[in-house]
């Protein structure tokens, strides 16, 4: 295993035989395709990358320190929103599940179903951004705008539900801030009906385009054993062919009641675990999310969404680690309580942080353009990497 990790991914026909000088080049923190303020220190030999050293921390906003200085557990939620800001619902979800476990609260069924719908919507939103920006990284502009167009429709549903488009503060410990609006099911079903053909269009325009396949297949291959050793999660892990999805393998909330599949990378256009596989896993996951949403809306039980919200949140001393499957991967909250109203410690295991740490393993021996492709395919959000 050690060997596979140090072995550089050789580009066909690009053995480094000529004697040449290596150049250190700084990609970022201001660079169009580092998806935020990531800095990659590239050691390049011409166009071929010898080593990649990621430097992070430019967006460090002291989330964990803030949590220890809040007056109560509830106030953490707006901050949790701001970690992975393209899928804020999923971040809240993980936090409230962790707090409820710590408080030993059982939340009403209706709340669970609405949470699942919202989390799956946020998965669609996040994947749309990932796919759109990935297209941009590869050089295709138009898919990005199509993705943004569809994303707006989801954001409209979010806004009608909780009043905010991006940072929701919607899931509260023990409940939700609002019940869904009156015409919710109809709107959701409309969206599902609208969205399926759009995925096909996206496939026509981008996924099966020969140039796109050439750029992504066989690039940035991450074998399954290396992936597990790096503990990468989400589409990156599934792209490597490991069918590991916490919604199925360690179900939380009511995910065990839905019928859906775990898409995995099969290496259809190249090697298992290449960029195209990771990309395609996202496309298929959006389809699965639509399935889950449709099922959840059909089964949505009646009830009150605020009945289980505790008046005062003061968990017993203890610690809990809860992991949930966000669009980016496994988001873990390790919350330690000392019996007061303020968390003693909130550690976030962010999926992007871990996935990014595997970047050098995927990039050695690739070309500069491949770095962009690999970085786009692991879909990082710097807000979550740096917290």
């Amino acid at each position: 295993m050690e060997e596979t990790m140090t072995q550089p991914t050789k580009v066909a026909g690009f053995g480094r035989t000529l004697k040449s000088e290596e150049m250190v080049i700084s990609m970022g923190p201001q660079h169009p395709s580092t998806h935020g303020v990531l800095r990659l220190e590239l050691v390049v030999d011409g166009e071929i990358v010898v080593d990649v050293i990621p430097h992070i921390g430019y967006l460090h906003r002291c989330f964990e320190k803030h949590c220890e200085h809040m007056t109560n557990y509830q106030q953490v939620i707006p901050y949790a929103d701001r970690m992975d800001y393209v899928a804020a619902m999923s971040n809240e979800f993980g936090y409230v599940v962790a707090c409820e476990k710590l408080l030993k609260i059982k939340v009403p069924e209706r709340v669970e179903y609405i949470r699942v719908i919202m989390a799956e919507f946020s998965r669609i939103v996040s994947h749309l951004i990932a796919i759109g920006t990935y297209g941009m990284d590869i050089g295709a502009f138009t898919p990005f705008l199509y993705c943004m167009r569809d994303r707006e429709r989801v954001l409209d549903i979010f806004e009608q539900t909780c009043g905010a488009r991006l940072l929701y503060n919607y899931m509260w410990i023990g409940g939700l801030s609002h019940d869904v609006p009156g015409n919710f099911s109809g709107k959701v079903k409309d969206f599902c009906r609208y969205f399926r053909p759009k995925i096909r269009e996206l496939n026509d325009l981008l996924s099966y385009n020969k140039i796109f396949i050439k750029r992504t297949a066989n690039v940035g291959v991450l074998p399954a054993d290396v992936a597990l050793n790096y503990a990468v999660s989400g589409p990156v892990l599934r792209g490597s062919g490991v069918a590991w999805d916490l919604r199925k393998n360690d179900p939380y909330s009511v995910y065990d009641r839905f019928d859906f599949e775990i898409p995995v990378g099969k290496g259809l256009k190249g090697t298992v675990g290449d960029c195209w596989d990771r990309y395609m896993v996202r496309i298929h996951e959006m389809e699965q999310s639509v399935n889950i949403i449709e099922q959840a809306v059909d089964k949505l039980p009646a009830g009150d969404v605020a009945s289980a919200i505790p008046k005062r949140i003061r968990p017993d001393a203890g610690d809990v680690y809860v992991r949930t499957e966000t669009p980016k991967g496994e988001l873990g909250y390790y919350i330690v309580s000392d019996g007061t109203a303020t968390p003693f410690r909130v550690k976030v295991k962010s999926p992007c942080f871990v996935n990014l740490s595997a970047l050098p393993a995927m990039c050695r021996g690739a070309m500069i353009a491949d770095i962009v492709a690999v970085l786009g395919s692991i879909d990082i959000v710097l807000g979550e990497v740096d917290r």
Partner: protein
Amino acid sequence: MLTYFRDIWDGVVTVLIGMKVTWMHLFTPAVTIQYPDVKLKLPERARNRLYVNMDDCIGCDQCAMACPVDCITIETVKSTPDVDLGLTSVGTKKRLYVPVFDIDIAKCCYCGLCVYPCPTECIKMTDVYEFAEFDRENLIYRFATMTPAETADARSRLSAYEKEQAAKKAAAAAAKPAPAAAPPAPGAPPPANPETKG
């Protein structure tokens, strides 16, 4: 050799398929709007700029406590018992002057946590979302309606009253029955109408 030609064929075909998609979209109506000319209607739950109806504020400080970014600053002055500050619209009796109620909207994160604990529902999020300013100072919204003179007056009366009470207590402690006869203070002017922002 076969893959060579198939690659070229695939390349040409998929390029044409992609071109077909963009060609169709050339004639689809745009989904964007001309923003400041055309505006979308916000849903009723929209969370944007905060507004405080000072007529109803009882100065309980709950919103400031709930705020995760500490952008609300409230100072209160107790009223003397002889003053009637009136009732709020939900019928709560007001007992505190609120000389300072500042919201630094530049810090506000629009989470809405301040809205829920308010007992009189006087702080709420409106649908106003265009309030850019050139000076950061202008983003500190001062909702309090009391003039400095009124504040000073209220404070001095409070301290006078407190002194009096202390004196009374001391007197009561010294000699059991004390002649309590403070002349009634002139009624404080009611707070002026709230300054409607935006």
